[in-house]
Each structure stands twice: as C-alpha cells, then as structure tokens.
C-alpha cells in the first residue's frame, strides 16, 4: 500500500465546514507524506487551513474527503474512542496557548495523558512525568502551577506533556507564537534535540520563516491547497542562533 513507509500520508484531503447555508472549504485536496524522523514545518498565510490540517493529522477532526493514514492506519473508519486512543498513544500535541490546567502543578499536568492510559501504574506515571520534565529542563519546577511559571516555561511543560506518552510524532500549532525570539529559539532548540537525538517526527505549524529555517522540510499552504513542498538543505541550528543573539537583547 502507498502509505507504508510513511508515518503520515494524506491523499486529496478535504475539509468542508457548513456555516449556515454556506460551505467553507478549508482544505481542498491536500496530498503529502511524512517519513519517520522528519521535522516538517507547515507555513501559509492566515486562513490558509494550517490549523484545520493539523487537527486532522492529530486525529482531533475527521476529513470530509480524501484519505489519511497514520502509521499505516486509515483514520476515516475509526470511532471516537479509537481516535482518542490514537491521540493518547501516538500523538503529542503542543498548542500556541499552552493549554495547561490552571491551579495544577507542572508534574500533574504532565501526568495527565498517562491517566488515560490504563496500562501505566501510578508509580510509573510519576517517574515518566519527572523524566519528561527533566528532559525540558524543568526538573526543579515540578510543584509549580502555571501561574508561577513564565510563558516559555509553560510551553516547556506543555512539550513535556506531549512527550510523556512516548508518541511517534509531535504536532505543534504555532508553539512559539506567544513567545519572544530568545524564548522561541530555546523552544526550537528543544524541538531540534527531540528530532535529532530522540528521532521524533515533528510537524510544526508556523508563519515565521526564521522558525521554518530550523526544520528539514517546509510545506506551504495557500487557500486550502499545497502551494510548495521544499526540502531544506541548510538546516540552521537553534542552539547556535541562541548563542549568536546579542546580549543586549537580554534586557
């Protein structure tokens, strides 16, 4: 079958929204594939359908037409519960607005996905959550609640939460959209490390070209269609970009 070597494979993906009597066509036949270990950015102007596409890739939404294979599994035939299971086992989501539970510690926030995985014991849950937080360098902030953390730290908690279930791919929707450039680079350095060291597949939505420069490939969307699909031969290192930032920026 076509999608076998791909972790993610779409063909003529369509998503139509019925708004009153009008039909909004957010995706009009999107076709592309992602191999394991790729770091893909999706770019495009506002309203081009990036979030809509990512929601379908993340099994939060189902396409109106076309096919989507995740890790070789056709999504359209699955029930709500099956989709929930896929989200829990194979996908890690990182949102622009972090979406951490308020008044809940970093540790408990990170433990959350594991609560919905019956195979994991209380003890293992805690251990893995601590490990994930240490991986995003927040080992010393376990008991802090979101309002006691900076934006960058909150996003790192969210990334730890996306990692804790050991997903095959991480989906991020403008994960650096609310952060200043230094913090954005820190987050991107983290993503690059996850991609290069831990071999995680990453799909990252952004509309900032300098963020896309850290990825290995960029898909450009326009008006619900793939406009361009380019490989990046000159992947920039976020770590270096961070070191090159003038200290004066650090006021």
């Amino acid at each position, binding site marked *: 079958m076509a999608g076998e070597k791909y972790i993610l494979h779409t063909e003529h993906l369509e998503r139509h929204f019925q708004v009153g009597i009008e039909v909004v066509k957010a995706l009009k036949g999107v076709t592309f594939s992602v191999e394991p270990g790729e770091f893909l950015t999706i770019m495009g102007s506002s309203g081009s359908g990036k979030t809509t596409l990512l*929601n379908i890739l*993340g099994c*939060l*939404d189902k396409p109106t037409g076309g096919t989507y294979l995740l890790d070789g599994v056709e999504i359209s035939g699955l029930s*709500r*519960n099956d989709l*929930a*299971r896929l*989200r*829990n*086992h194979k996908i890690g*989501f990182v*949102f622009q607005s972090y*979406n951490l*539970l308020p*008044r*809940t510690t970093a540790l408990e926030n990170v433990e*959350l*996905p594991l*609560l*919905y*995985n*019956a195979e994991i014991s209380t003890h293992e849950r805690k251990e893995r959550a601590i490990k994930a937080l240490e991986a995003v360098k927040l080992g010393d902030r376990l008991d802090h609640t979101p309002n006691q953390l900076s934006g960058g730290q909150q996003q790192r908690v969210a990334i730890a*939460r996306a990692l804790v*279930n050991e997903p095959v791919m991480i989906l991020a929707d403008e994960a650096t959209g609310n952060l200043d450039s230094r913090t954005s680079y820190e987050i991107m350095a983290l993503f690059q490390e996850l991609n290069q060291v831990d071999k995680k597949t990453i799909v990252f939505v952004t509309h900032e070209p300098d963020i896309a420069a850290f990825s290995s490939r960029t898909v450009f969307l326009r008006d619900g269609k793939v406009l361009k699909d380019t490989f990046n031969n000159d992947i920039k290192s976020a770590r270096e970009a961070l070191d090159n930032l003038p200290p004066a920026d650090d006021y």
Partner: protein
Amino acid sequence: MSIFNLLRIALKALQRNKLRAFLTMLGIIIGVAAVIAMVAIGQGSKQSIQDQLSSMGSNMITIRPSSNISPGGGARLDASSLQTLTLDDVKAIQKQATYISSISPAVSSKGQAINGAFNWPTTIQGVTPGYLEIRDWKTKQGVVFSDEDGTSAAKVCLIGQTVYENLFSPGDDPIGKIIRFNRIPFKIIGLLAEKGENAFGQDQDDIIIAPFATVQKRLLAITYIQNIYAAALNENVTEQATAEISSILRKTHKLKDTDDDDFMVRTQAELINTFSSTSQLLTVLLTAIAAISLLVGGIGIMNIMYVSVTERTKEIGLRMSIGARGIDILLQFLTEAILISITGGILGVLLGISTAKLITIFLKWPTLVSESSIILSFAVCTITGVFFGYYPALKASRLDPIEALRYE
C-alpha cells in the same frame, strides 16, 4: 481510568471551588437532614403512642353495652346506663371462647377516698383478678385479692400509686391500712406498680381496684355490669377473639339475625391502628416535604454541574486532545456530582441526627432515628447525584474536542 484516579480528579476539582461545592451540597444537606429529622419525629411519636397503648394492655378487648334501638327521637341513652351486659355473659364467654386467655367483668364508681386527714377524689374499679392479668399489671407491694374475696364481696382493695401519694405521707406502709371510699371501709392489701399516663393523657395510677362483687353490690347496688374486659391469646388473634365474643353474646342475648348488636366489642389493636395511621399520615406528609427539598437539592447539583461543564469546556477539550474518551469525561463529572451528593448526604445524616436529638432535649418531643431512613436518604442521595449529574456529564462527554479547545 481507575476509580482511585477518578476520585482524585473529582476531589481536586471540588477543592478548587470549595465554597461553591459546599453551597451546592447545602441543598442536599438540608434535604437529608430534613428527611432524617422529620421521619425521626414521626417514628418517635408513633413509637410513644404505641408504647402508651400497649401499657393499657395490647391484647385487651373491651366489651361495652350499646343500644340497638335506633333513636326515633328522644334522648339517646348514655352507654353507662345501658344494662344489656350481665355476669351470665361473662360466664358464657369464659366457657365457650377459645381465643381468649382471661376475662373480667367490671363496674366502676367515682367517689371520695379518705384516709384519716387525707382525702382524694378517685375512681374505684370492681373487677376479678383476671383484670390485672389482662392489663399486665403487677403489684409493687402486697398481694392481689383472691377468688374467695370475690365471692364473699370482701372489703379489700389495691391502690394505684397516685392514690397512695395522695392518701399517705411519703414512706408510710399502706398495706393493712383501712381507707374509706364513699364511707365504706376497705382494707388495703396491695399497692399497684406505676403505669403512668395512657394514650389519652389519663393518669392510670389514679385508681382503686377492688373485687367485682364488692363494688357492684356494696357500693353501687346494681345487678348488671358496665364493661367486660378480656385478653386475646396474643396480638395476632384479637380479630378472631372479637368475632367469637360477638357471636357468643348474640346467642346469649337471643338476638335475631336482623337485630343489631346490643353491645360493642373494641380491641386495643384497633386503637393502635387508628393512632398509627394518623401518625403514618404525618410521617408521609413530613417525608414528602423532605423529599421535595431533596429534589430541590438535586436540581441545585444539576445546575452547578452544568455551569461547571460550561466553565471547564476548555479543560474538557484539552483532556480529549490528549486521549480522554467520552466515557472518561462522563465518569469524571459524574464522580464529582456523586461526591457532592454523598458528602452532602453524610453531613445531612449527621445534621439530621443532631437535630432529632436537640428536638428531644429542648422540645421534649420523642424522636426515633431509624436506620431505614438513614439508608433510604443515602440511597436517594446517590441516585440524586447520578440522576442530576448524568445529563451535564453526558453533555460534557459529547463535546467536540476542537470546539471545546477553542472555547473561550
């Protein structure tokens, strides 16, 4: 998700809004406390009425004369002046009835009892020793008169506690003393044990008991008898016993099939039933009021759960996006609702029991907290939680993850 985790999540969610959780609970607390206290009052008064009635002898059957001539104008005769019952009736019942254990004729008279300087208006009751068995009445001191005392119309008597207190100085031994009742001297041979008030508030200890013939012949000088008391073998055969007595009396009175009874047979059980059906009605009414307040409490839970689901739409969306299934979300909110209602139920039971105790202490009303009312209100509470929590929880579980995440 395991029950333990569900409880943890629900507890955390409630802790985040302690005051609101408590106010929601308040409806349930008041409802349950009301049920417990109301039922306790109802049961308590029922119990005390039953105790009082059975202190009059729970197997007791009373036979009174009655008029079988329909009043065609003119004054109806007072029951006590009717003369349809005789000692022959007593003998006939004694011989033929199979459902009764003892029987006694009775006549009574009001009068003045005098002991030296003391005097006291009271009632003298002329009966046979069987009467004390029927009433299950013991002597505190002395003995009961014998059958010979009855046949010889001996001038002996037993006195009740109230009569003793009013005719003797405290500590005096009444046994062997002579008192006068309507100028006839009676030798006291026994002091009756205390019985207290009966269900009608009469002092049962304000009485002198003497042999039947003594009162009938020496005091009243009549040939008929006023009442007959009998005891059924046990409480379960009182109906058979009354039917039997009626048919015996109809025979001895030679009544035709078309004639009405010229007597009345009443059982204590009937009285108990009348009283308990009134208090039953009271219990039902009180419980209905309490149940309504529980319903209102349940609606309170439902309302808050809806608010909570709306408020936490984003949280629901997030939980779904990281893998929570609909059932996980449903159980999470249901657990919260049940936790509220059960905690409210526990506090309500405690409050209800204390209220019942306080009512007994301060208002002196008898109360009886029954286990069944605790179990019932607890069950109702849990069901309330499940029922009123279910729809908000279902609504939460059916949210679309994307829309929920977008919700502001």
